[in-house]
């Protein structure tokens, strides 16, 4: 009897591990292909059939090249793009999280008239395609005389603020009302309750929405392309990549684009690795007891 269950457990473990491997393969393989392409010269890229590692066209020996990386790193545009992207994405995320968590606390835990219209109003702001609002947004920015970086930060609110607000509202709603009541009995003002008790409890949601919003802002292309057209020094990474002229390759610098994509993705992965510890379970479980 005992043997049987342990055999079942082993089978379960194997199945689970297969699942993990399958998921990782699915999610990572296309990225591996980008890395693979970034290590190929132009002639290697056009080999038929495509090779799973960079190979010499004649001898078929393993022969990766770093020339794509070299030309990306020496491209000043790319480095300044990294700096710009970091500034813009960080500011956007911070603003969206602060404004979003304030609004979400009100929408999720306070009673007031106009709660539903406010929720819908915030969501409605992101229901238009970016192309459509582009001209109007450009007019606003020119009228206010905002610099390219500031205009990117503000315009990215259009898609990050509704997202952070809605996700955090859902999480605030899930927190038991008893928490607020007991804090109020202890003499805390609602805002203190929010800052000291509820906000720390929503840490998993804050980290999650923060990461997703950061990456969305980091990757945004259309607004960045438009707003940096007058100020090339403010170009973010996606725009800088789009402007690659092809220093190595004659036509389209595909290898360089892939090298840049690899270089840009790695810091993001490190960022997630650092912050994912914050997505931890069981925070609310103990808080309501007693």
């Amino acid at each position, binding site marked *: 009897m005992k043997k049987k269950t342990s055999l079942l457990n082993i089978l379960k473990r194997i199945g689970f591990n297969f699942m993990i491997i399958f998921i990782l393969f699915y999610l990572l393989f296309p*990225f591996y292909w980008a890395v693979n392409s970034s290590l190929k010269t132009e002639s290697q890229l056009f080999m038929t059939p495509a090779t799973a590692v960079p190979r010499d066209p004649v001898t078929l020996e393993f022969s990766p090249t770093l020339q794509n990386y070299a030309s990306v790193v020496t491209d000043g545009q790319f480095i300044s793009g990294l700096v710009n992207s970091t500034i813009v994405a960080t500011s956007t995320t911070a603003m969206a999280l602060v404004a979003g968590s304030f609004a979400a606390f009100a929408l999720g835990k306070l009673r007031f008239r106009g709660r539903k219209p406010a929720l819908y109003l915030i969501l409605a702001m992101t229901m238009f395609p970016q192309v459509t609002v582009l001209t109007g947004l450009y007019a606003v920015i020119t009228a206010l005389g905002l610099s390219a970086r500031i205009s990117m930060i503000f315009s990215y609110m259009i898609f990050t603020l509704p997202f952070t607000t809605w996700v955090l509202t859902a999480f605030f709603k899930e927190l038991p009302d008893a928490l607020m009541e007991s804090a109020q009995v202890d003499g805390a003002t609602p805002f203190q309750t929010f800052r000291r008790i509820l906000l720390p409890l929503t840490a998993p949601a804050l980290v999650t929405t923060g990461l997703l919003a950061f990456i969305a802002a980091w990757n945004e292309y259309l607004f960045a392309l438009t707003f940096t057209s007058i100020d090339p020094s403010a170009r973010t990474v996606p725009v800088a990549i789009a402007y690659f002229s092809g220093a190595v390759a004659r036509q389209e610098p595909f290898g360089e684009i892939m090298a840049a994509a690899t270089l840009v993705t790695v810091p993001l992965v490190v960022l997630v690795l650092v912050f994912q510890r914050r997505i931890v379970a069981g925070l609310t479980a103990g808080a309501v007891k007693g």
Partner: protein
Amino acid sequence: MAEKSGNKPPGEKKLRRKSRISDLAKSEERLALKLLLPALLIIVLIAFYPLAQVFYTSFTDRVFASGEETNFVGFDNYRRLLSVHITELEPLIDETSGQQLVDPESGELLYERPLDVLPREPRRYREFNQFDLFGKRYVIGATDPSFIDSVQNTIIFTVISVFIELILGLVIALVVNSKFRFRGSMRAAMLVPWAVITVVSARMWEWMLAPSRIGLFNAFFDWLGVIDSPIAFLATGGYQLSSMIAIDVWKTTPFMALLLLAGLQTLPGEIYEAAEIDGAGKIRQFFLITLPLLKPAIAVALIFRTLDALRVFDIFQVVLGSSAYSMASYNYFQLIGNRNMGMASAIGVIIFILIFGFAVSYIKMLGVDQE
């Protein structure tokens, strides 16, 4: 408090209590407004004018980036985009035999030309599609078949890709929610597709789907021996939309998975302990506990994924260009290619209405806005 008010007449006590409650309610309302202020300010500053302008422009014939005079045209743009006409096609009859003519090459039955039966006034209708019903052939004509096509593409794309993303995202979230050794690294690794710049990931997939053996998929299928000649995934009608769905599912499943993972984290562990004691199996636990409790997180994830999918632009624009449109890439074509800003704005408003409809039905269906 209690002993103090004890001496007073009961009516006054009630009154005081009431006013205290309304005081509390008022201060709560004031706090709520203060907290909403930053978000509302941002909306007014950054979204109000552009959105109002889109609504207004959609009723005009404004030309993009030009000094031409703008006229108010009412619902003309909408009429041009959305007019659809369905009519029956008469079969072509062979005069001598009285039988319907058949195309000698394809063997298909022949009907009269759609152009001859579709209305030309006030605007010319062009063929969008044909279908058979009860042995009769009908033609769907539209004044702007490309737009109707883009609506169809976008809706099919959205429904299928969001559905797959939900299932896959849920599976991944459940896996990385359980404890195992490299859980932290796996959580970082699983976000890689979302982290790759959208425009670049579109180019990357375009390369992998290349119509010869320089592309991964054709090289792989050729190696397996399942294809005779390379498939032009991005130029063949049937494969285009599937390719777009595959790219989007790969790219945005992590978004779904991470949101659902955060939702899973807030579920109280005690319920599972209790269920375990009651002898409920893992599968029963999932359907009876996890899924119902996860509903708010699922709703929010669905709303934002659907909203993004209905506005899909980058991958259609980069990979398919003008060979097949999504609503947003058709919008871009009208604005930049045709410089027809009135029409582009009308498309924007139609997308807005569609998204609003989807959002409201999700909210009602999953009951997220209940108190």
